[in-house]
């Protein structure tokens, strides 16, 4: 069952982009759209959108970079560990939960390290890899997506993103805990 699921999804993932390109552009041609001209017209926006993101991304990544390089994560982990161990969350995975919304490469590093130390099939290994997949790099997504449209006042986006992250992390801890014990 799980294998079949993986098989199907992998095929879909492999075929999706070629199929979409063929279908969208081909259908356009059939419908007498001047495909080449319209494509170029749309593509020309690519540069401005990408460049518009830069200031937002610089602001966000520099703050995250300073935070990561300072070792602040270790300090926070030490402070919060007594609280989170109450809900059955191993302190090792707490660093993962704190890093996940901030940095994709940082949390990937933590996941790899935890698996090296504890083994990929241990409770901590499975929990860390589930946590990694249970959320996105919220602050990066925020900077890029809002940066593209020049949104500076993000209103409730940050609390919403953090609530989603917290829910994802807690759900990962819970489901892995239930299946493992």
């Amino acid at each position: 069952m799980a294998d079949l699921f993986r098989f199907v999804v992998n095929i879909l993932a492999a075929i999706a982009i070629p199929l979409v390109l063929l279908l969208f552009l081909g259908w356009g041609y059939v419908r007498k759209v001047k495909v080449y001209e319209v494509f170029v017209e749309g593509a020309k926006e690519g540069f401005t959108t990408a460049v518009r993101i830069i200031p937002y991304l610089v602001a966000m990544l520099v703050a995250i970079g300073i935070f990561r390089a300072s070792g602040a994560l270790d300090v926070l982990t030490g402070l919060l560990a007594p609280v989170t161990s109450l809900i059955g969350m191993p302190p090792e995975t707490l660093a993962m939960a704190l890093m996940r919304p901030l940095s994709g490469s940082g949390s990937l590093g933590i996941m790899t390290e935890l698996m090296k130390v504890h083994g990929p099939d241990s409770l901590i290994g499975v929990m860390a890899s589930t946590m990694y997949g249970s959320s996105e790099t919220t602050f990066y997504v925020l900077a890029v997506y809002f940066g593209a449209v020049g949104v500076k006042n993000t209103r409730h986006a940050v609390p919403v993103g953090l609530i989603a992250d917290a829910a994802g992390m807690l759900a990962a801890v819970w489901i892995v805990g239930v299946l493992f014990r």
Partner: protein
Amino acid sequence: MLNTIWISLIALGILIAVGSDVSDEVRNTYRNGIPLDAVVEVQKPPSALRRTWEGELVMAADAFALFYGVAAPPAPVRQPVSVTTAADGRSALLLQVGDGAPVAWKTMAQAAPAKGRLMAVVESVRFSADGRQAAVRLVFEPTRYVKLKAVTAAALDYAATAVTIAIGLIGIMALWLGVMKVAEAAGLLAVLMRALTPLTRRLFPDVPPDHPAVGAMIMNIAANMLGLSNAATPLGLKAMEELNKLNPKVGTATNAMVTFLAINTGGLVLIPATAIAVRAAAGSSDPGMIIGTTIIGAGCATVAGVTASRLLQRLPRYRKAMEVDRG
């Protein structure tokens, strides 16, 4: 809230870096100014013609642990060194810090002026009778401000990284914007949007169900679920631009934008390919076993995010932020 979190990351980072450097200074973590005794196995001996000789510095693991007050490294320490004698007879040692070097030395080398190399003043050298070994007493150049230097480097590096990421987006961004423009002109997305209207109208009540933003959002979510992040980001940005056309107050996030972002930060992926690859590389007996747990985790994150976005958007402070000045 973003302002608070942003300044907290920066301030916390810098204050903790200062604290950590002060504590290193007080405890003399890097043993600044304290002579270290080690043996160098000579490979290229000094001669009348050469002032430089080379070899491998060897130190027993427990001697290293005792000197730095850390846990013993798994194997004896062995690192290549070269020693240069100046005209006045004083010698300087250069230690290449390789991948196998102890953590303490790696940290010191990162903060050293010459990255990856440690400089030391040689206080005394005694060659063995056969000239193959030398007992060396050395004092490393002092190591200070490790974390502050790391913070400085990170700030500059990440600023450059931001530009690299953005520049890297230009090509795929252009590709997908072009494809989507053709799809719009051909009216292809309308079919997809009509099929999903019951869902999208509930999720994004402020967005007309036949608006191009809906098509881009559907495409983005589909690409995300298949793990095609190269397509998902450009489609997501396209969706944001379309949503912004409906924005009465440009520069402020609309309810639909926040809900859309909540779905994106939930990160629902059918197959978490990165985590599976790391598990396989770490020698897991069943790398794919986390598919189910991840779908549950990310599903909870997405549902919580969407629910939170619908609830929080009603709070007075967030409603007020959306009011348009009619001056």
